[in-house]
Every structure is written in structure tokens, then in C-alpha cells.
């Protein structure tokens, strides 16, 4: 696991690369010369500076974060539990297989519209976020359990290692890298799909509502500013969540 963590660290985004793309963006915006078509990063920053002093900004962030993160956590928890159960009981796995495949294949937009019939728009992002996360985590957990070294399991059988120790020291350490990479993918998906659901459902006081209004009024600085906010929030959440997983792994390895 440590090797996986360090590989991820090597892949971290470099400041110089960000600066390079910001410069390209600024140059392109200046070349076009129309803020409505391509707003400059400076204008976005200025808009953000005014936004952060508004209480609605923080309330909207809290509204969306609460729902999308809830959906993510629900999807993750259920993916882990059902992944473990499905590995133990092949009938449950067979039963869930068509459902998971359907969840993976349905386009988000069509499911959002369908879900709007059943669920109030206020909670739509919870459901859609869950819907994106569950199949990814579920599949990765099953793959992780399947990849557990059979030779280690034989060793545990010969030494009569208890079930709890087997789960903690053999299964967990081999499933965690799969779980982690599943979470990485799911984190990106849940923010994209969650905000898309808000844009379609337009619940009051959500980030999605602000994006929708920016689109209606052709308020490009606002559109870009809220997009930056979404990126920052999702990156922060990803850092915190994966940090917690890595901390858990380190604790496990230090045993």
C-alpha cells in the first residue's frame, strides 16, 4: 500500500503546470476579447472574491456538499457491505449483477430526469451521487477480495489463524488498494453527477441552481467561479477522504 500512496504522491499536480494553463487561459481570453465567450481567470478570481463574502455562497456550498457527500458515503458503505456479502454468497452476487450493470450503463442525465419523478429535487443529488458511487465501489471491493493471495489463505488455514485476524491482516490489506482506487474514481464521478443532478433538478440554494442561473443570464464569470468552487470542494474532499484511508492503512501496517 505504501508504494501505491507514494506513486500517487508522484502524480500530484504541480504548481508550475497549473500556472502554465492559467497563463494559456488568460492569453486565450485576451485574444478573444469577449468575456461572455471566455472569461479571464482574473475576472473569475474577482467574482470569487465577491462571492465568498456572501452568506448564500456558503449556504449553497453547505447544501450541495452535505447531499453529495451523503450520497458518496452511502454508496461507499453499501458497496463495501454488499461487495463482502456477494463474495461470500454467490446467489446474492448473481442477483445483484444485472442491477449493478444497469446502474453502470444508464446515462446520468436520463436517470436524473427519471429520478425527479420519484424524489424531490432537494434530495436528488444524494440519490444520484449514491447511484454513481455504489457500482464502482462494489465492483472494486469484489475484485479486491478475489485478488487475495490464495497462498496466504492456505498459510492461514495451516496455522489456524482466526477469522477476525484473517479479515484484518490478509483480506483488508489486499482489498484496501482496490477500495482506494475505487474511491478515487467514485469521488470524481459523484461530484460531476451530483452537480449535474442539481442543474437539472434546480433545488433552491444549491450550487447547481447558481450554475443554472449563470447559464440562463449568460453570466460567464459566475459560471466559471462556481465551477472553480466545485473543483476546489471536490479536491478538498478527495484529499480528506483518501487521507483518512491512507492513515488507516499506515496504522494497520504499523501493527
Amino acid at each position, binding site marked *: *500500500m*505504501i508504494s501505491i500512496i507514494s506513486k500517487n504522491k508522484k502524480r500530484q499536480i504541480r504548481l508550475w503546470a497549473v500556472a502554465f494553463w492559467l497563463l494559456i487561459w488568460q492569453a486565450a481570453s485576451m485574444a478573444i476579447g469577449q468575456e461572455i465567450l471566455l472569461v479571464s481567470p482574473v475576472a473569475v478570481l474577482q467574482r470569487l472574491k465577491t462571492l465568498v463574502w456572501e452568506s448564500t455562497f456558503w449556504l449553497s456550498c453547505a447544501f450541495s456538499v452535505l447531499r453529495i457527500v451523503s450520497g458518496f458515503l452511502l454508496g461507499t458503505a453499501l458497496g463495501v457491505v454488499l461487495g463482502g456479502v456477494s463474495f461470500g454468497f454467490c446467489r446474492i452476487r448473481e442477483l445483484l449483477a444485472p442491477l449493478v450493470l444497469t446502474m453502470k450503463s444508464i446515462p446520468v442525465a436520463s436517470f436524473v430526469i427519471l429520478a425527479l419523478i420519484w424524489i424531490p429535487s432537494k434530495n436528488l443529488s444524494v440519490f444520484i451521487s449514491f447511484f454513481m458511487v455504489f457500482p464502482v465501489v462494489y465492483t472494486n471491493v469484489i475484485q479486491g477480495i478475489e485478488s487475495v493471495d490464495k*497462498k*496466504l489463505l*492456505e*498459510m492461514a*488455514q*495451516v*496455522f*489456524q*489463524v482466526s477469522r477476525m*485476524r484473517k479479515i484484518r*491482516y*490478509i483480506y483488508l*490489506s489486499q482489498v484496501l488498494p482496490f477500495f482506494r482506487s475505487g474511491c478515487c474514481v467514485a469521488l470524481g464521478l459523484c461530484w460531476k453527477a451530483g452537480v449535474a443532478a442539481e442543474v437539472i433538478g434546480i433545488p433552491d440554494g444549491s450550487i447547481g441552481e447558481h450554475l443554472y442561473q449563470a447559464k440562463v443570464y449568460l453570466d460567464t464569470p459566475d459560471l466559471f467561479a462556481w465551477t472553480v468552487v466545485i473543483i476546489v470542494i471536490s479536491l478538498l474532499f478527495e484529499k480528506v477522504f483518501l487521507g483518512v484511508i491512507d492513515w488507516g492503512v499506515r496504522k*494497520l*501496517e*504499523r*501493527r
Partner: protein
Amino acid sequence: MGIQITNLNKAYGEHQVLENFCAEIPEGKTTCVMAASGKGKTTLLRILMGLEKPDGGEITGLENKRISAVFQEDRLCENLSTEANIRLVQKGGKGRSRDFLQQLQDGFSAVGLEGWGKRPVKELSGGMKRRAALLRALYADWNILFLDEPFKGLDRETKDKVLAFVREKCRGKTVLCVTHEKEEAEILGAEILEL
């Protein structure tokens, strides 16, 4: 009473590995199984450990016995420390007791692994991993010990040190060791069983 093996048969497809194999592994002694490669030494050990089912035959003397083993591969949890790998196979809280940890330190010194107990197994060399696997087997709670080429990959000097330690730890106990080296059997004071 030792382990009685009667008319043991095992085939993989068309390939008959063991055919009407009979033997007695004496209790309280070390027995070395010797044969050319592919003659079923590891298969015999796997059957005795309960990891393979024989096609026929009978084995007695393994009932209610606690087994320990060094496998052909090291089979260590790479992310755990060497010490944690050894503690993993201990029953209950024994692995945490002060006495046990002290004994373990002596074991680490005896096989030339002092200072490596807290390091993750993945940082160990091949020979060090072999010694860690040996320590795990020797420090488990066992009545019968199966060793499958336990000294492979060790240099001359280390092998002598480890052999002396194994001989000491296995004195008066039932051990079945697979090896290609007659010299190892002699140092261990073992009876030789040809397959």
C-alpha cells in the same frame, strides 16, 4: 505414535505423482524426505497439511495435532512487519506477551535478523524472508512441523547458523523436512525417507 501413511495415491490428470506410497514418520524425530524434482515431495507435504485431498489411501496420527509449516514459498504478509507476521499465527494474546517477545528477539539474533523485526517484510531480501518464514513456523504453537526446502536461498554461513538453530528448536519434536541436500539432513540428525 507418529504419522502412518498407507497406500497414498495422488494424480494430477494423467500424471501419477504418488502411487501406493507407504511410510511412517516417527514421533519426536526429524525425517527428511528426499527425491528428485517432480516426484511428489511437496504434494506429500500438502496432503499431510490438509491442503490437498489424496485420491486414495489413509493417513493416521495427525488427529488433534497442531501443525506448523515453512512452505515452498515464504507466504509472508508483505505489508506487515516481520514481527507482526510471526505474531499473526500465535494463539490468543500470546504474541503480545513480554516473554514471547523476548524469546522472539533471541530467535531474530540466532538467525541473523536482529534489528529487522519491526521492518515491513517487503524491505527484506529473499534470504531474510526465508529466515522470517522459518521463525514464524518455529515460534508457532505446534506438535508437527513441515518444512519444504526451508534453507533454499541462504548462503553457506547463514545456512549453518540457521540449521544449528532449527536443530536446537526441533529437538525431540516431530518434523518432516523436504530437502535436496543430504548434508542438511545429516546436520539435522534426520532419518531419510526416499520417495
